[in-house]
């Protein structure tokens, strides 16, 4: 493999590391209490004391962005974890065994994909009940399974009949061993970019759900919910929408770059 500078990957990693660092920091430390209100500090523009300004309750927006990012990143990560693990499991089974199992599982998968994802998440939320982070994660996690299943199924199917798999099978390796030890490591180049794309979609999906009022509930902060709050005071505190929106864009942009970089890396590598 030719050694080559991967600009996407590096830029993406830098941006993501900074933001992830901020998000993790937001869990432990924020300059101000993100829900503390102050009548004296309402609608202040960005200043050294409040670098992103304050909102209608005098809350420090930078603190809220930190806390909100950590909520959003946490939800997005868990969502992708659920989607990737369950989706890959489905993809592995269907891609490797084929046949009736494949038909049944993939048709169910198609049925899930037929719904717009937000609508599906809405349905799940209305069953589980709104207002809890766990439920948002579950709802989005379920929504994310089909795309992973479809993607990994193709990858598994394409290497199913490779010689080294045949050999492993002839040596009497169990299906589980073949799937986990021999096949899974060889589909990373497909899975990793998919995870980054999935993460981005999850960030945006969480943002949309909270924006619509079915995700995180006030006064908790998540980027999406903050954006919907910011919308109501755009005239008086434009810095709120701008800083929150920027945070979402940067987060998605950084992870997107990593995904792009990984994809290019994968193209160079052989499997």
């Amino acid at each position, binding site marked *: 493999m030719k050694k080559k*500078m*991967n*600009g*996407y990957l590096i*830029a993406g990693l830098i941006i993501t590391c900074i933001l992830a660092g901020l998000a993790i920091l937001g869990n432990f430390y924020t300059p101000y209490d993100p*829900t*503390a*209100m102050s*009548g004296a500090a*309402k609608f202040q523009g960005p200043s050294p004391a409040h670098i992103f300004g304050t909102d*209608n*309750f*005098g809350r420090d927006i930078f603190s809220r962005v930190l806390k909100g990012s950590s909520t959003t990143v946490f939800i997005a990560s868990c969502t992708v974890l659920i989607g990737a693990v369950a989706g890959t499991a489905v993809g592995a089974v269907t891609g490797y065994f084929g046949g009736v199992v494949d038909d049944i599982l993939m048709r169910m998968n198609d049925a899930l994909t037929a719904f717009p994802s937000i609508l599906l998440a809405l349905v799940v939320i209305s069953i589980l009940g*709104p*207002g809890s982070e766990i439920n948002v994660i579950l709802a989005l996690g379920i929504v994310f399974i089909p795309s992973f299943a479809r993607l990994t199924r193709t990858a598994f199917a394409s290497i199913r009949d490779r010689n080294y798999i045949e050999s492993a099978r002839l040596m009497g390796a169990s299906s589980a061993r073949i799937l986990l030890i021999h096949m899974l490591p060889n589909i990373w180049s497909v899975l990793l970019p998919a995870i980054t794309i999935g993460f*981005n979609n999850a960030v*945006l999906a969480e*943002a*949309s759900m909270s*924006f619509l*009022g079915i995700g995180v*509930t*006030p*006064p908790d902060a998540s980027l*999406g919910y903050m*954006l*919907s709050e910011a*919308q*109501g*005071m*755009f*005239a*008086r505190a*434009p810095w709120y*929408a*701008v800083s*929150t*929106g*920027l945070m*979402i*864009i*940067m987060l*998605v*942009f950084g992870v*997107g*770059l990593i995904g792009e970089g990984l994809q290019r890396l994968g193209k160079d590598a052989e499997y």
Partner: protein
Amino acid sequence: MRKQVLAGLLVLGMAVTALSGCGKKAQTTETTAAASTEATAAASAAETQAASSASETEAASSAKTGRAATNEITVGIAQDLDESLDPHLAVAAGTREVMFNVFEGLVKPDPEGNLIPAVASDVEVSEDGLEYTFTLREGVKFHDGSPVEADDVIWSIKRNADDSEGEAMIPALTSISDITSEDNKIHITLSQANNEFLSYMTLAVLPSDYDGQDTAPIGTGPFKFVSRKAQDSIVLERFEDYWGEPAKLDRVTYKIIENSEGLIMGLQSGALDIVSHLGNTQTSQLSDADFHIEQGTMNLVQALYLNNAVAPFDDVRVRQALCYAVDKQGVIDLAFDGLGVPLGSSMYPAFGKYFDASLTDYYTYDPAKAKELLTEAGYPNGFDMTITVPKNYQPHLDTAQVVVEQLKAIGVNATIQPIEWTSWVSDVYMGRQFESTVVGVDASEMTASAMLKRFESTDSNNFINYNNADYDALYAKAQSTFDDAEQTEVFKAMERNLTENAANVYIQDMADLIAVRNGLEGVQFYPLYVLDVSGLYWAD
């Protein structure tokens, strides 16, 4: 590859400038941009922004001339009306607010809160307060063209007084012992005098032989009902044969937009002409060039209503602790820019003589005292609670958020549960399945009972399950007291009872800001939660 990274950063830069460059007009763009993918945001934000602001200005200018030219307006309202439009069955304040323009009673309230003759041209009351004689006004017609007859009036009153199937719709009317008519006179005899009786005669007069009130209501008001689309709109038209001064507008469309940003956008885009019940944060987004803001009071009691039947709110000390822990003025300052009148009981200032201002400061903000009371009640470390809030009402959501923050100081961990208005009505108000809720409660008539009766332990509207024997006794006493001054004192004692027992955490009567498109005049405030559109007109 470097170039591509650069290009990527450029795209990002565009997205950022598009976002920060978005003026007030391009709000929609901003939100969709953030919620869609970064790529589309970057690619389309600039174009959409240009396109949307262009189309908006176009729409705004044409709408202005358009609706003013056809002499009609579109009113934005935050909630759909009750499922049935039958005025006798209406529950929601939002329904009464609209239907105030369609229905009238024998008498009706004027902007000062006095009762003025409507379907009746005159009323005489006997000295002992037991005999009422109404004279029907000549030439009053229903919207279907048929004249109002004494039978219709009697049927309407009897329908509200009927208690053969449980509680009567207006229980106070069960004191009617006899109604007779003679030509154009209607005699009502009461079994006991009631100072508030005349207020109940604001009940809508409906045709006795018509059974379509649920879907196509017919009344005698200045506007007649034309059509309704559930969750979308209600259309009213001027009633040409109105007995009084006819409405100035030809047509009024109520557009239901269940979120406050949507209402503001509707105003900005020219889709709406007038929206009431707005907050300062919202109205400040509107430009003076297009709108003027009228300020009154909402005429309702906004409070953190507590379900007195569930733990820990069944303990009076806990409720009192919450009252000490919530800083009303703080809520008003933080969430409402200081606009709003703090309240201490279930009565608002527009009620005049019934309002007891001394109750407002009964509980002064005192977290230490609150903590003491909680410890006494067995919750030294506070507790968890849920505040259910109808999410289409931003002011209530804002209040709830401040309350949550204030309660933290005494260790009470409150979470907000935003729900749909319809779920609020069915689960919280009807089903009483809630711990606490922030809403505003208003009066359907200008009577003290309209505010206070609901807390009588057996009342069907007692959604907070308030159960206080003294209160019930006071209410019974109020019903049998005929001296106006004496009765007023009893009502005040009831208010004091509510305050002392901390039935709810009373907060405020909110400022009512009405955004009105310039050129539209004639807004009048009532001491009730209504918007009278009959006086509105487009100035030249």
